[in-house]
């Protein structure tokens, strides 16, 4: 980091819980206030937030930039699609379990190779390995449906399916929305504990200074491996939640530019903050949707946004907001 270290987070746990509860309540009320389309967008945002939260355990807390997180997202999504296609599973809970198992397996395999390296080599390795999965999903037509992808019908939530004749949009904006919200809250809570646990401290220590971390007795690779695993599983869960929302999965979500989008979201929100990835994911989802509606050159728009972010606001939305907030407070006091 080029910027001077900022003051650490010193807010009291009670205040954090209150804030989180307030935000959760707002999110819970949204489907009743917003039109269905907006609710669906928020649901997409929350799903991506889980993925980016996982991703950021590596980038923000372990200092490892993965350019291959599309792989674990895709594994989660395809795990669900395979369970539908081959096992006729309908239960969302089983989907999530399956996605956790599948993404843990793949992440363990990839992690075994990748955590031996850091910096650019880590990024390149994660990217290259993720593209192996992309090519498999893409070419194994008879298993994966190739570019046509696999459809996933409406799942059963806690054993309850969509009522016959019920409106799918209503299902998505209410039943499924709350399911996503619940999983999201659980994931945020878990990740909060992870990054504030002794393990989380160890990761940050390794990020700051690998040599010294070794000399306080940390087995650096083992820690990176576990972080990689957790990160991948979170992203896999997001993939599983994403499929029913989207209705189908195609190799597009395994292609490397999707990994780039995940990185984009983290940077947009600010990867040195716990909340940055969440904000980044939700905002990016809006940004992209409206950029596409606004101009055919939406890619250029996003590209320029990214370059400006990196050049001018490397701490992202949350980092910048905090800075401004701190400055304003200093001025008033």
């Amino acid at each position, binding site marked *: 980091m080029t910027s001077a*270290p900022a003051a650490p987070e010193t807010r009291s746990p009670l205040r954090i819980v209150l804030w989180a509860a307030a935000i959760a309540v707002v999110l819970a009320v949204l489907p009743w206030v917003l039109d269905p389309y907006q609710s669906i967008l928020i649901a997409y945002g929350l799903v991506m937030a889980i993925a980016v939260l996982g991703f950021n355990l590596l980038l923000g807390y372990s200092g490892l930039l993965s350019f291959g997180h599309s792989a674990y997202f895709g594994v989660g999504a395809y795990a669900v699609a395979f369970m539908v296609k081959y096992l006729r599973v309908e239960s969302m809970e089983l989907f999530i379990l399956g996605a956790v198992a599948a993404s843990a397996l793949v992440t363990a395999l990839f992690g075994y190779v990748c955590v031996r390296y850091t910096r650019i080599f880590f990024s390149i390795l994660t990217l290259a390995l993720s593209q192996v999965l992309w090519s498999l999903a893409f070419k194994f037509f008879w298993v994966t449906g190739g570019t046509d992808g696999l459809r996933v019908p409406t799942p059963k939530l806690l054993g309850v399916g969509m009522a016959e004749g019920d409106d799918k949009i209503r299902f998505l904006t209410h039943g499924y929305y709350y399911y996503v919200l619940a999983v999201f809250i659980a994931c945020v809570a878990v990740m909060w504990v992870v990054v504030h646990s002794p393990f989380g401290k160890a990761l940050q220590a390794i990020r700051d200074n690998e040599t010294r971390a070794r000399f306080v007795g940390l087995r650096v690779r083992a820690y990176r491996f576990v972080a990689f695993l957790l990160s991948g599983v979170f992203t896999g869960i997001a993939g599983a939640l994403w499929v029913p929302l989207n209705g189908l999965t195609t190799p597009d979500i395994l292609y490397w530019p999707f990994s780039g989008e995940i990185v984009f979201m983290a940077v947009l929100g600010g990867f040195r903050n716990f909340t940055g990835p969440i904000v980044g994911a939700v905002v990016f989802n809006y940004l992209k949707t409206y950029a596409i509606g606004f101009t055919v050159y939406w890619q250029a728009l996003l590209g320029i946004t990214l370059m400006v972010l990196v050049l001018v606001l490397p701490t992202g939305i949350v980092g910048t907001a905090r800075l401004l907030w701190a400055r304003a407070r200093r001025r008033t006091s």
Partner: protein
Amino acid sequence: MNLLETRALTKYFGDTHAVDRVDFTIGEGEVVALIGSNGAGKTTLVNLISGLVPPDSGRILLRDADVTHQRVHRRIEAGIARSFQIVNLFDELTLLDNVALSVFAREKMTRYFWTLADRHAAVWEEAHAILGQFGLGEKASTLAGGIAQGERKLLDVAVAYALRPRLLFLDEPTSGVSTREKAPIMDVISAIVRSQKITAVVIEHDMDIIFKYSDRIVVMHQGAILASGSPEEIRRNETVKDAVFGPSHA
């Protein structure tokens, strides 16, 4: 019984004999100063023993147990800790976190990803206490990247000390700080080492400090041990004077 013993420990860097068949021993409770001119092999010797670099040949025995090829974390479990000549800290963590991390690591708690670190009050108390011992208590919640060099040197030692080692290597604990600050730093460190009866090896250049704080002095020259003895003996040793301080030295 010797706490640590090396046998014909050797490390080459290309053609340079950084450490050349060194037999180095240190007894329980000793405070030894390791001296020698730049490039004499002092830091390399410490790097070999602490596990930063692997030796080319020779053995390292800790209480007669062979640790030559053990991984760093095993050596730390066995009680070997070190500080660094060029300060090695977790700059984006607070002072308290820096020390607490050692405590967590020592207690094998860093693998806990399911409990909040803040919940382990005993660890934080201990970390606070250690910071207090090193006179850093007031800056506990400052980021390590944002304190003065002298304080960083102390913190570096505190991080190593928090591992509760039996054998502590201090690689130039006062390098890079002003002469005026050196003695206070050494006073703090020395008080802790002596009171906790830690066996320590100090690499140092400042002769005043060496003579004041060490029980024994080991002199290295061109990768080999030239002499070993009490401060008085070393002071009188002519070979040492020539090799270490140069012939022109007084």
